[in-house]
């Protein structure tokens, strides 16, 4: 059904500038970089809200009325969008689906892992998809979108190349990784790193004391020596794990919440890659 709606994204009679809504922070950065001056990008989730727990207000629904299209994750990460479209009477609004034909990892709770934006390679494919979708909607600017996507993907690829170069020669057999979120699987996979345990499969749900104790036991049993937590996660929770399990701790960002900027995705992904390279270096070197 969503695919049919995406396919119905036929060229529309447009004003000079296309207004495209986005549900997630990475999509804001991607669409801004690909669209350039031909697209105005409109966040649907306010900067202060978390998409995992977003409850739309009437003013959020009203934003949809001015849009020509909306970029949708479509894998469950932005399930709030469909009810919003119905409430706004915009069921026929063209959907741009960057995840179309992207190879996806399985999710912790069944279905596909919806965090495909937490990867340079998967994001590159999505950015190319987005450029094509925008070109279908707005043919006069199709070449511009394609070229902008190419330049942007090249820049992102540079981040990945730099991280891979810095991982060269590290003894990965000494590195045993766990994360607090299964969404980072895409990122570790493209770096050739294996995640041995995910200690909190569901975002934003923190364990009970008993679950925490089990988690620490699992980390010890898997000989995990490097744990990646998330920025914004309850410090007492992760510090307890660090103290009790003795593993090193590094923090990653989910790229959710906070200001929407064109640079945000690159900046946060660089921070993620730096945290991984630094953590792996320490765990491999035994320092």
């Amino acid at each position, binding site marked *: 059904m969503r695919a049919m709606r995406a396919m119905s994204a036929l060229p529309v009679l447009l004003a000079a500038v296309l207004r495209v809504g986005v549900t997630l922070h990475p999509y804001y950065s991607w669409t801004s970089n690909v669209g350039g001056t031909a697209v105005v990008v409109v966040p649907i989730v306010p900067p202060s809200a978390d998409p995992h727990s977003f409850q739309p207000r009437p003013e959020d629904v009203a934003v949809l009325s001015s849009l020509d299209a909306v970029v949708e994750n479509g894998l469950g990460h932005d399930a709030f969008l469909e009810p919003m479209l119905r409430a706004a009477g915009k069921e026929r609004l063209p959907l741009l689906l960057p995840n179309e034909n992207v*190879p996806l990892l399985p999710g912790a709770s069944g279905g596909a892992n919806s965090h495909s934006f937490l990867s340079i390679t998967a994001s590159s494919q999505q950015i190319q998809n987005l450029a094509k979708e925008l070109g279908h909607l707005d043919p006069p600017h199709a070449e511009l979108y394609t070229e902008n996507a190419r330049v942007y993907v090249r820049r992102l690829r540079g981040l990945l190349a730099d991280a891979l170069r810095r991982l060269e020669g590290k003894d990965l057999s000494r590195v045993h990784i766990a994360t607090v979120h299964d969404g980072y699987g895409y990122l570790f*996979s493209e770096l050739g790193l294996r995640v041995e345990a995910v200690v909190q499969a569901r975002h934003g749900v923190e364990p009970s004391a008993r679950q925490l104790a089990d988690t620490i036991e699992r980390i010890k049993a898997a000989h995990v020596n490097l744990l990646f937590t998330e920025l914004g996660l309850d410090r007492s929770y992760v510090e307890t794990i660090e103290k009790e399990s003795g593993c090193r701790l590094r923090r990653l960002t989910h790229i959710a919440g906070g200001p929407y900027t064109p640079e945000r995705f690159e900046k946060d992904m660089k921070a993620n890659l730096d945290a991984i390279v630094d953590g792996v270096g320490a765990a491999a070197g035994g320092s």
Partner: protein
Amino acid sequence: MTVARGLRPAPASLPAMEAVERRVLPPSASREAAGVAVAVAAVVLLGAVRIATLPRAGSAPPRTAASAVLTAEDQVVYQALLVGVDAVTSMRKKSGVWPSAQALAADDVPPFAAGLLPAAARGLAWSVAANGTTADYSGVDPAGKRTAFLLRVKERERGASAEVWFRKGGSTSSAGAYPVREGWFELVALDGDTGPRP
């Protein structure tokens, strides 16, 4: 006697019934034959439709989902190929010729540029065989152990289409014109999904 409202009491005596005569004609041989013919035609038509919509073993290539059959490092190669199609078609458009694997590597396009892959995913030797509007980019392990890949890019009137094929267990030679006959499988992104889009 209580009489229900709205009903008339039955008359004391009923009139004698009259016999009804009805002529029953013998079945028409021609009408029966026509009915049988219509039924047979319907069965034949439905059968033909069913056969026409069955998957054909000889023409449809076996397609399989990447996440189900590839190792983690092979999935990295597969995804890099999907992203690389854009660079291939862009260089083709600019120069008029299909870019060589070396040219793509020099332009930092993975998986042709091994430095942009994790160490475990490296080691395939890439080459191109171009034939007019089609180019086959093959990545094979010279030792014949690693999974071999084929990226087939076809130039279309508008844009290009691409297929990714693989052969597990390795191959020291590139796939021919009909990879399915040589034991190669086409990859799709996810079960039930279509292959890479133009």
